[in-house]
Each structure stands twice: as structure tokens, then as C-alpha cells.
């Protein structure tokens, strides 16, 4: 009897709270600009915008090194030798419409997410059930270590049952986060307002708005003129100019995203690991990182950054040695012809590279590599296309070389992405391609069930070593994110996994 009364009371309080805030004005709204559109309300598609704006939340969270933290679940345990995960939900969590969160809702949400292209795809789930009002049990057909990180991914964020229509389409964003939707215009404008009944730290600011700014130059101008308070994804070239402005703080953050060349290891010219090593040695990474990315320290010939220490080989320095590269190719029978291109059996060493324009630096880096390989005698034809041409080219086998920006922090445990990229015989859409290394495949499969940290590290290092020496992918640099924050705000911090903007920690100076 008490419960319905209590929820009715909460709903009434919420309704009052909703009207208590003044309307959004430039003074009470944190204005955010970033490059990304949200094409629909469905978390599986554009959930990253909604978790970043703290409308939706996930069962688990991660810290800035990828370690699991409690989220909507306050505790979790792994049972049955890794084949069952039990999560205990936090008490007192309310959706923005006043509905209390329970394990039945959470189970229904995860089952829904599992049927869509979400992070749960590929996880060997046999059942997701609520065992009581606060306990959720996920049963697996085999152990899956990165499940915790998957449960921190935006595509598994929880919506209220009232967010769906009769056809199970999302019609409203009703989450549990510290902010509720005030106004949403798909695909580019979102205004959120403080949710006063939030279970955790309630926000210090009343409103925040998110506006998609497609053009990097326009975003820079917004930051410069003070019309946007927080601008993500600044063009590296504009950073020195913005740093000189007294009203802006520029925050530099490392991202677990790597710029790399994906190679078709089944291609006759690339099948020998020496050829791939030669191509890697011919790349002047520091030059590219300095001139194009404006971050010389970001250059690297390893796929994963040092803070993902299990996967990073210590004490290696990126090598640039065109002479050694020439030697290696000579060992494979390549000789320069009269036009200074490498030739073998009457055929020129010619490759086609594809990349995409969504990230402006990719085009410049592609042409820099084209020039650096030309010095080696390798003819590289660059074509700029849509990002989807890469998985499509992988699947039909037509891809030769692709320049990609791969996010190894899509879920906070890189193992999840590495399994997708290197775990099957043909490789992965964004990983290796026809790279014959059965050891790496079986190591990866074993790691999924490995609970001993020492053994885990040893195997991870072995995989990193294999990727480093055999070069199924040629890493070039890590990504650095530059963000401008207007000095009227304080408390900003950046999440390298880009799950949250931590708006509830911001306050006006």
C-alpha cells in the first residue's frame, strides 16, 4: 500500500521539480558543441550522446583506466567459473518519469539490447533474468571476461518502460541520469535539465545544451567567441591560437583510439611479414604526428597505449629506417625500375588505400604515407570514401590497405575489441585480414575465460608481441583530444572512454 503512495508522491514531487527550474537561458545553460549527430532515440544507435549528456546510465561504470566501478548496479559477482554474473541493483533509483528501477526492467532492457547491433552482440549469453526485485543474473554458455565492460557500454543503457511505444520503438528518452530531456530535436539539438531526484550527486548547473557542429572550423569559432562553453574535437591546428585566449582553458586528453593501417595479409605483395615490416619502417611517424596531428608525442608503432599496460610492450621506440625497409624488400625480390618504382616479375609494387573523410586528419595522413612509401618505391593510390567501405572491402576480400582510426575503448576492456578484430580466421572488419596466426586466435579465446591477472598479462603481452612483429596492422599514432572549456565553468574533467561529460560535476565560477 505504502509503495504506490510513495511512487505517486515522488511523481508529484518530480512534476513540481520539473516546473521549479527557470527556463534555459544563456546564463544558466552549459552549451556544448561536438561533431556527432544523434540519428535516433535508440541507445543502440546514438546512445553515446545520451550517456555523455547523462540522461541514460549503464549498470556498471569504468574509471579512466578502464577498471569497473558501480553504476546502476552497486555490486556484482562472477560465479560458476565465469559462466554467470550476478548484479545487485542500487536502491532508490528513479527514472525521470518517477518509475522506480527494478531488476525486471533491467533484464528486459538488456534482452532488448542483445537483439540489436549493440555491444552485447557476440557475448555468449544464454539468459538474462531477474531473480528478485534487485538482483539480475546473466548466464553465459562460456565465460566472457569483458562482460563487465560491455555492461558499461552506452548500447546497454537503461530506459524506462514508458520510453517505448506498442511496436517497441523508442519514443522518448526516459533514463535515470542526473539530467532529463528538456528539448530534443533529432539529429542535432538536445537540451537537458537537472533531475532533482537523482540517486547520486545532483548537478550544480540547471541546464546543458548539446548542439552538433559539423564543421571543425565553426566549432573553433564558437569556442573563440564564447558562444559555446565546452567544445570537443578541436582542430589541432587551431589549438595554439585558442590557447592564447584568456577566457578559454584547453584540455588535452589521450584517447584509446589508434590511427593504423589495416593490411590485407592475404595479398600477394603483403603476405610475407617482412614486406609489412618494411612498409612500417618506411613511415616517419614523428613527422606525421608533428605536422598533421600537432602532437609529436602521439606517434607510436604499437596498437594500444601505455596505460593499457597489459597490451603495451614496454621500452620500445617507434622505428623509422627507410634503408632497412629497402633491404627487406630487396630480400623479397623487389628491385627499383627505371621510373623508381619497385618491381618484381614485371609487376610494380602498387597498392590501393581507402580511408574516409569523417575524420579530417585521415586524408592528410593518407597522402603523407603515400609520399613516404613513394620514396621507398611503393606506389600507393589513395581513395577517400565512406567508412563502411572498410568492413565491406574486408568481407568481400577486395580491400588492400585501409587507413583507420580504431577505438579500442569502445568497451573499456580492449579484449572485447581485440577478439572482434583478431579472433577469427579471416580477422575482423576493423582488424587483421587473412593473417595466418592461429596462436593469437587461440590465446585470445583463452583470455576471455582467464581470471588470473598474472596469466592474463603474460598472454596479453604475447599477443601484443605477435601483432608488433608480424604487423597485420601498422599503427601510426594515438589520438589526442583537445577540448576547450570556457573559464566561467569549473569542475570539468574528460572521460577517455567518452562515456560521460560529467556535467553533474560542473559548476559556475
Amino acid at each position, binding site marked *: 500500500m505504502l509503495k504506490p503512495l510513495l511512487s505517486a508522491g515522488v511523481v508529484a514531487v518530480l512534476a513540481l521539480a520539473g516546473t521549479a527550474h527557470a527556463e534555459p537561458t544563456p546564463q544558466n545553460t552549459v552549451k556544448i558543441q561536438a561533431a*556527432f*549527430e544523434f*540519428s*535516433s532515440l*535508440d541507445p*543502440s*544507435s*546514438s546512445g*553515446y550522446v545520451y550517456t555523455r549528456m547523462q540522461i541514460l546510465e549503464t549498470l556498471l561504470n569504468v574509471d579512466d583506466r578502464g577498471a569497473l566501478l558501480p553504476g546502476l548496479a552497486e555490486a556484482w559477482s562472477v560465479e560458476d567459473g565465469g559462466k554467470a554474473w550476478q548484479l545487485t541493483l542500487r536502491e532508490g533509483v528513479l527514472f525521470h518519469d518517477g518509475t522506480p528501477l527494478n531488476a525486471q526492467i533491467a533484464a528486459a532492457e538488456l534482452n532488448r539490447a542483445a537483439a*540489436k*547491433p549493440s555491444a552485447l*552482440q*557476440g557475448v555468449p549469453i544464454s539468459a538474462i533474468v531477474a531473480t528478485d526485485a534487485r538482483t539480475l543474473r546473466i548466464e553465459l554458455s562460456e565465460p566472457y571476461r569483458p562482460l563487465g565492460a560491455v555492461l558499461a557500454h552506452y548500447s546497454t543503457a537503461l530506459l524506462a518502460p514508458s520510453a517505448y511505444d506498442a511496436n517497441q*520503438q523508442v519514443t522518448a528518452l526516459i533514463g535515470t541520469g542526473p539530467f532529463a530531456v528538456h528539448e530534443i*530535436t*533529432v*539529429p*542535432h*539539438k538536445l537540451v537537458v535539465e537537472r533531475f532533482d531526484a537523482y540517486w547520486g550527486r545532483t548537478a550544480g548547473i540547471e541546464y546543458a545544451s548539446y*548542439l*552538433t*557542429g*559539423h*564543421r571543425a572550423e*565553426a566549432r573553433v*569559432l*564558437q569556442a*573563440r*567567441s*564564447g*558562444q559555446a562553453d565546452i567544445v570537443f574535437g578541436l582542430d589541432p591546428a587551431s589549438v595554439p591560437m585558442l590557447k592564447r585566449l584568456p577566457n578559454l582553458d584547453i584540455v588535452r586528453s589521450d584517447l584509446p583510439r589508434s590511427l593504423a593501417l589495416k593490411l590485407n595479409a592475404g595479398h600477394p605483395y603483403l603476405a610475407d611479414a617482412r614486406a609489412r615490416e618494411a612498409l612500417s619502417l618506411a613511415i616517419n611517424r614523428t613527422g606525421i604526428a608533428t605536422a598533421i596531428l600537432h602532437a609529436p608525442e602521439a606517434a607510436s608503432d604499437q596498437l594500444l597505449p601505455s596505460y593499457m599496460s597489459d597490451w603495451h610492450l614496454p621500452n620500445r621506440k617507434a622505428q623509422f629506417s627507410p634503408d632497412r625497409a629497402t633491404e627487406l624488400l630487396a630480400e623479397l625480390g623487389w628491385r627499383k625500375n627505371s621510373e623508381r618504382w619497385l618491381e618484381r616479375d614485371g609487376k610494380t609494387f602498387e597498392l590501393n588505400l581507402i580511408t*574516409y573523410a*569523417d*575524420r579530417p586528419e585521415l586524408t592528410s595522413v593518407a597522402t603523407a604515407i603515400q609520399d613516404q612509401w613513394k620514396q621507398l618505391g611503393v606506389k600507393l593510390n589513395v581513395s577517400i*570514401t*565512406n*567508412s*563502411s*567501405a572498410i*568492413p*565491406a572491402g*574486408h*568481407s568481400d576480400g577486395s580491400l588492400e590497405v585501409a587507413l583507420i*582510426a580504431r*577505438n579500442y575503448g*569502445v568497451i573499456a576492456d580492449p579484449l572485447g575489441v581485440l577478439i*572482434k578484430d583478431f579472433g577469427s580466421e579471416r580477422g*575482423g*572488419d*576493423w582488424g587483421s585480414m587473412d593473417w595466418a596466426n592461429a596462436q593469437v586466435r587461440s590465446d585470445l579465446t583463452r583470455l576471455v575465460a582467464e581470471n588470473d591477472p598474472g596469466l592474463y598479462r603474460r598472454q596479453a603481452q604475447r599477443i601484443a608481441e605477435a601483432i608488433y612483429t608480424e604487423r597485420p596492422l601498422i599503427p601510426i599514432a594515438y589520438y589526442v583530444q583537445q577540448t576547450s572549456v570556457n573559464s566561467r565553468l569549473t569542475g570539468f574533467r574528460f572521460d577517455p572512454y567518452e562515456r560521460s561529460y560529467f556535467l553533474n560535476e560542473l559548476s559556475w565560477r
Partner: protein
Amino acid sequence: MMLRDLLIKRLLQLLAVAWGVGTLTYILMRALPGDMAYRIAASRYGIDGVDSNAAAMVREELGLDQSGWSAYWQWLGDLMQWNLGNSLVSGLPVVDTLWHMLGHSLLLALTGMLIAALIAIPLGLASAYWGGWLNRLTLTLSTAMHALPVFVIGLLAVVLFALELAWLPVAGFGSAAHLVLPALTLALSLAAISNRVVHTEAQRVFSAPFFEFAQIKGLSPWQAFLRHGVRNISVPVVAFFGVQLITVIEGVVMIESLFSWPGIGHGLAHAIFARDIPLIQGAALTMGVLFVVLNTLVDLACHALDPRAGDPA
């Protein structure tokens, strides 16, 4: 009678444009290289989310395996029932998305044309009436303005009004202040030519024998202008505004991208990258229909201004 003929003719034209534009965009989109399922998956799930698995799910959900013909017939059948279908990316009805975008585009286009008229008409008349240095000055300015691509005008306006003077927002939408710079940019590029058209027509009328006679019979220059000038000048000027609609539509696409204005041009550009065929067809169709409708309105205005002209079509 003639008016009715015009309207029937235009209605038939409208149907032909609707069918032609829709079919042509369909053929062109289908002819582009690249797998549609992958393209749509990339737009839906982002660069980090697109893979063969997501593409396979999209292909199955949207039935992309069906033949080009059957998809085309389905579109045509739906169109007959005023149904433009759902966006392949967002899943929302195309009509809703178009209404949202069209509202913004029309607001921008009409405000731009209004400001253009406010600049072009007084400037054209003044330069025709007084001539001399004023004429030379407007001619130089118009030539310079016309020589600049519209996005350069926009960027210059941003640098001046948004960055240096900080009077107006750089880009975005949601308040009247956001409309000023895009509308002004559009207006300046339109007024660059139209003020010269007004000038030429006004000069023709001012030096015409009937205009001189009007003043000889005792009318003041102002009275002569109101009674004999305005109507004579406005027929070709209004007709020219009709011709200029093409520039408006082109300009709107560029300006919307520059100022992040969520109109139909901006939406169309995005839909093309995403291979969102229903949205592309819908947007192209709307632009085509709008073009015919606005031209018809221009013809009707010309007809009202000069009934002597007979069949204006």
C-alpha cells in the same frame, strides 16, 4: 479561362516533376558504388559501430535484398498514397523530418529574399535615378559581391559580426539572432544581381517617352513614379525573382552547411552521405515541387501586374 489553363498546365508539370525527380534520384542513388546496407549501418551506428554484423542486421531489417525494381514500385505506390516512407537511418517518417527541415529552409529563404528586396529595390532605383558615382559604386560592389562564392560572403560576415564585433552567434539555430547572418549572407548574394536588374528596368522606364509625358502633363516625379513607374518596373523584376529561385535553392544548401542551419539542404547533404534513399527522394521531391509552386506564384503575380501579357505561361 487563361488562368485556369495555366493552373492545369502547372499541375501537370508538378506531377511530371514529382515523378521525374523521384525516379532520377532513385536511379542515381542506386547507381552509386558501395553497399547500401553498410552505408546505412555506418550512419546509424557510427564509425565505431559499423561492421559486417550490423550491416547484415540492417539488410535484413530493411529488406535491402529485394530487387531494385520492386523497391522502386513500392516507392511509387507509396507516393500515390502520399506516403514518403520512413528514413532508413532514423526510422522516423520522412514527412516529419521534411516538415522540420522545410520550416527552417523556408524561414531562411523568405527572410533572405525579403532582405534582398529591401537592399536591391531602393539601391537599384536610386542608382538609376541619380546615376553618376552612386551608379558606379553600386556596380562595383555588385560585381565584387557576385564574384564571391556565397560561403565566402558567409565567412566574411561571421568574421566581422560574430568574431570581431561579437554581435551575433557564429552558427546554430533556436533564436532570431541565429537567423540574421545566414539570411544576410543569402540576401547579399541575391541582391548583388537583382539590384542591377532593378536599375536597368528603372532606367528604361525613367527614360521612356510615356514617363516623360507623364511629367510634362503636370505630375511630380514622385507621382509619375507611383502611377506609371512602379508597375512597369515590377513586371520584369518579379519575373527575375522567379529566375533567381535557383540561386536561392543553391545558396540555401551552402549557407545551411556553413551556419549549421537544420534546413532541407543540410539534411539532403547528410542523407546523400548516408544513402538514406527515402529521405533523399523526399527532399529532392520537396525542392522540385516547391520550385514549380513558387514559379507558379511568380507567374500569377506577373499576370496580376500586367494582364495585357496574355497567357503568362
